[in-house]
């Protein structure tokens, strides 16, 4: 086969990415739960026929899935190898976090694109369903000690067999969720996306021929690898350590160390997490595939020119022992995976900041703050409001960090409070920037936020939260200071209370008229605060980003 000319390659790259992008858009527009429709907690792509490696990924999907989906598709490939009954028109469904990364809410659909009786590539869709059973509505069970308490686990099963939907499976899914209708709508949205992807990819293959597309996919992977090698080679050889901590595991109030030794040797990089804490009792564990996926996310943020396909992982070696909380298997609980992966990403940012301090950024707020409010509607049906929240991004060489951004693992936009209020019996009483929450620095960290919510339901409103950074703040970089801690407060009949495990809440109920308030961290600062432009400090105080007291303390500014 003759190699593709670079121009045709550029053309095909655009066409392929466009297919995945349009799959993303199709699901967002037809999904039922706001976590997909508004927050875009979903992802689509094309995956390698034999290995499941990522070939092409949508640009608007959730970044963390970019790394994780390859493992998910591989799980289906293994299933097909065991069963040997793959046919055109089949679609697999599963949510097993140990076999495909992330957590039980992320339901994956995987479908082969068949050409002449063989798999040309896999199409996959993943989306966060609102509720998959378990002890806690919305499934962020901060004190789960086994995955069985987090929801129901589905191994790869054939949802559609020769084009026929298996109603038995649909019925089992429906019986195991608090919100079956929402899940049914999301499932159909994901199928809409796969249908569209199948049509578009089929048309592209008809137009250019299977061999040409095959060659293009291989060339794009090689190119990603070359770019990643160039980025690594530009860093000085050496080993860079970074240790950070999770507050606790939701069960025992004891910090959990995430420790990284990042080694650069020529154009290869080793990420060694051996010094990290052992598996924990609570849901802050993650599977190896999840750890690899989040390392990929961190590196993509640092090296933005590397395209999103499996080639960029080729020059990277991972050391993730199964004796750590970063390499667990079933049935260790993993529902709080979002917090652990954010901390893993922070350690990569931290180690990078030691290798190249002038190119680093202060850490982002790096906690999801998965909040579920739930209760019963008049006719005996459950309602579950699930939302995760924003915070500040780190100060960086270019300027101050962004106020109220989303996490590095996500491009999720927050649902409008007017949408939430129209769907659930709640009323927001505050939705504001949080002063003094950004880490001080030459370039200040962006601000976190304050969200305050009042219960309007007649009966009790159950409160569940899974957050972090309540004890260990987001660090700064290159001499910048840390951001504010995460803080959660709920109202009781005896006044305001702070949960004993700080940012992890279960078994709390509030009555009509009572409130909960979440105050999120900002981003870490960049550079020595003493070098901040005094005019910027004065502006910060005028606009209320920084209080006069904090300006005096952190910047020695006169008020």
């Amino acid at each position: 086969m003759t190699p593709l000319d670079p121009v045709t390659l550029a053309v095909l790259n655009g066409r392929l990415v466009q297919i995945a992008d349009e799959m993303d858009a199709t699901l967002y527009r037809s999904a039922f739960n706001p976590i997909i429709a508004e927050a875009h907690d979903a992802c689509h792509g094309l995956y390698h026929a034999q290995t499941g490696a990522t070939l092409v990924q949508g640009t608007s999907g959730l970044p963390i899935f970019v790394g994780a989906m390859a493992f998910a598709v591989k799980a289906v490939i293994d299933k097909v190898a065991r069963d040997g009954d793959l046919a055109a028109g089949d679609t697999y469904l599963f949510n097993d976090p140990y076999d495909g990364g992330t957590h039980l809410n992320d339901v994956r659909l995987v479908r082969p694109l068949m050409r002449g009786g063989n798999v040309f590539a896999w199409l996959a869709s993943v989306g966060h369903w609102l509720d998959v059973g378990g002890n806690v509505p919305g499934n962020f069970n901060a004190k789960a000690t086994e995955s069985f308490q987090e929801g129901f686990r589905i191994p790869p099963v054939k949802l559609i067999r020769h084009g026929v939907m298996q109603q038995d499976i649909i019925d089992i899914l429906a019986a195991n969720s608090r919100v079956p209708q929402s899940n049914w709508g999301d499932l159909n949205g994901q199928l809409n996306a796969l249908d569209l992807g199948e049509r578009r990819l089929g048309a592209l293959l008809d137009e250019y021929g299977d061999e040409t597309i095959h060659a293009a996919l291989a060339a794009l992977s090689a190119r990603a690898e070359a770019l990643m090698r160039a980025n690594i080679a530009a860093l000085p050889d050496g080993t860079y350590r970074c240790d950070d901590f999770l507050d606790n595991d939701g069960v025992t109030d004891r910090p959990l160390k995430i420790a990284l030794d990042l080694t650069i040797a020529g154009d290869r990089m080793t990420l060694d997490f051996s010094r990290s804490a052992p598996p924990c009792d609570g849901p802050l564990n993650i599977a190896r595939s999840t750890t690899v996926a989040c390392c990929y996310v961190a590196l993509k943020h640092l090296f933005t020119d590397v395209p999103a396909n499996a080639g960029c992982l080729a020059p990277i070696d991972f050391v993730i022992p199964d004796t750590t909380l970063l390499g667990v298997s079933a049935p260790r609980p993993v529902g709080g995976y979002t917090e652990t992966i954010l901390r893993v990403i922070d350690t990569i940012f931290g180690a990078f900041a030691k290798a190249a301090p002038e190119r680093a950024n202060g850490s982002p707020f790096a906690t999801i703050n998965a909040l579920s409010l739930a209760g019963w509607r008049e006719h005996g049906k459950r309602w579950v409001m699930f939302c995760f929240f924003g915070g500040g991004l780190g100060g960086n060489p270019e300027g101050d960090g962004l106020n109220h951004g989303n996490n590095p693992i996500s491009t999720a936009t927050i649902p409008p409070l007017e949408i939430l209020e129209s769907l659930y019996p709640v009323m927001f009483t505050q939705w504001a920037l949080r002063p003094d929450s950004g880490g001080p620095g030459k370039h200040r960290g962006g601000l976190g936020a304050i969200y305050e919510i009042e219960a309007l339901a007649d009966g009790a409103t159950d409160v569940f939260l899974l957050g972090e950074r309540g004890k260990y703040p987001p660090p700064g970089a290159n001499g910048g200071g840390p951001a504010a801690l995460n803080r959660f407060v709920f109202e009781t009949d005896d006044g305001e209370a702070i949960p004993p495990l700080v940012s992890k809440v279960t078994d709390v109920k509030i009555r009509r008229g009572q409130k909960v308030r979440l105050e999120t961290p900002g981003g870490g600062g960049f550079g020595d605060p003493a070098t901040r432009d005094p005019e910027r400090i004065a502006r910060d105080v005028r606009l209320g980003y920084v209080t006069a007291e904090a300006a005096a303390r952190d910047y020695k500014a006169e008020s």
Partner: protein
Amino acid sequence: MSAIVGIDVGGTFTDLFRLDAEARTFTTAKVPSRRGDEAQGFLNGLAAVGGAAQGSIVHGTTVGTNTLLERRGPAIGVITTRGFRDVLEMRRRDRRRTWGLWGDFVPIADRDMRLEVAERTLSDGTIRAPVDEDAVRAAARQLIRQGAQAVAVIFINAFANAENERRALAAVRDVWPNDYVTASHEVLSEIREFERASTAAINAYLQPVVASYVAKLEAALAGQSKLHIVQSNGGIMSTATARRLPVRTALSGPAAGVVAGAALAKAAGFDNLITCDLGGTSFDVSVIANGKAAVAAQTTIEFGLVIRTPMVEITTIGAGGGSIAWVDRGGLLQVGPESAGSVPGPACYGQGNTRPTLTDAQVVLGRINAARPLGGELKSLDVEAARRAIDEHVGTPLGLAPDNAAAAIVRVADARMAGAIRLVSIERGHDPQKFVAMPFGGGGALHVGALIREIGLRCAVVPRFPGITSALGCVLADPRHDMVQTVNLMLDGLQADALATRMGAAGRQASAVITAAGIPVERTDVIYELDMHYLGQTHTVSVPLPVDADASGLSEALVRKAFESSYLASFSRLLPGLAVRIVSLRVAAIGRRPAFDFSVFRPDASASLERAKAGTRKVWFDGGWRDTSVWSRLALPAGAAIEGPAILEQPDATTVIEPGHVGRVDALGNVIVEPA
């Protein structure tokens, strides 16, 4: 005077198109724009077509867009619900780019200019706390003291019940020294607080600028002509509406171009087309299917600046004539998004840029005539400088000879343009065989051959005057007024009569705005659309209703049928058994203007092939240099057929006819380029 003049004031040139409908004559003119003193440029332009006494003047303006992009607007204030002053700054918790965590956002109203008052409406419209009008007046006075020139009142859930906002608006007006007072429900009575707040705040930000601009123009016209403004949706509005809702002018100029494209194509016998405007830094495309331009409900002007009001959907990619070609670290040739702009411009301009641009590649390949640059400011182009730039930055890294490297640049740019067209056509289910390309501006017609080939378009229609398309669109546009109202009604058990009554009232209100605009129309059409979804979804599909202006005959069954047909057009499966909700009602009143007679563009009797023939030159096609005939486009007679390879030149554009293609001059002076 009974003439109508269209004026498009762009960044570099002000284009005019004057039509005397009775005499069946037209005049075009192009004068330099006056940056910073657009009104003077406007008057200079009018002078070029006979002065200010014309009858009607319809204006496409970029004053609003530029004010936003360059942040040149005044200090504005926001008065909002207690607890929510940061909605505008917090956006929807997004960031600039998927990958990379740098970059911040500065809102158009500083934090200390956003004040809160006690009040609250719930999502079902219940007023939980009435507004404190004294507090509103105090806030307004404070904003005045702090220098605000305009103010927006933005309350949570005002779409569900505007009572508190209306009372606050009245209270602000008690003390506010000018008319620049916006309430969010007046601009956008729709759920989603950030999008409504952003649209309302941008409206306030633009009000002083657009109003004073319009006032200057009207003063200069001194009542000799009536002035109208083109909206982002391609309709025109009165200056009174433009002053009240300046946010609707954001895409005024480009939208007029799309209107002209639709009308030109229709007159030439094509209902399905894609307009392609190749400028210096960008390539803008929009799709017109069945004679109708695609309209988007929302546009992001730049990160965090969201406008939610119907706009002609224009997809922009960063690939224009000034886009820089470069080889990335992975060895892939890229064109754009970085641009050399018009200053310093392409390397061949000789104004200091030494990196190759798309225009440089076209010059090296002989497609652009180096001796006769467009626009008339430069005497000639430096072909050698273009060749050096390409060789150094593209040819050498890729191991290609300069000519081949230039061809590769054009091919990559063609591919990006084709991608943009695919995005709006094929990817939305439109069959390219049924579509034609219509290039605007100076550059679009250089690429039509490749676009036909790559996408499989039927042909390209190059209008007679590609460079003044937007000005022509101003003359052709219909007056239009859009309204939206969130209604939240369940389809099951719908009280269709009540909804029809509500629709009819809204329709009459929108029609009244058309009547008040005072531009002659043959009739006014009222179009109703419902935004609908399955209960539980947050996004909606827009469902056009086949009903008349009174919405008579509306029924639950009719709405359901329309919903299902729209839903299936977007998604592959219906969800039978699930409840369906009507979220919002959209009403558009459109005044239909008398048809324009495009035969005014017919080439005159003196045109002939002999007069048009302008010699030959070497032009690069398909990997080699070809002897290529060159023609003076405007001298070609109707019915002429020019076989490629050929170059058609005219003062405002160059058309390339590739080998294997033929260009035919139709009865209306268009050149139709198609496979021979």
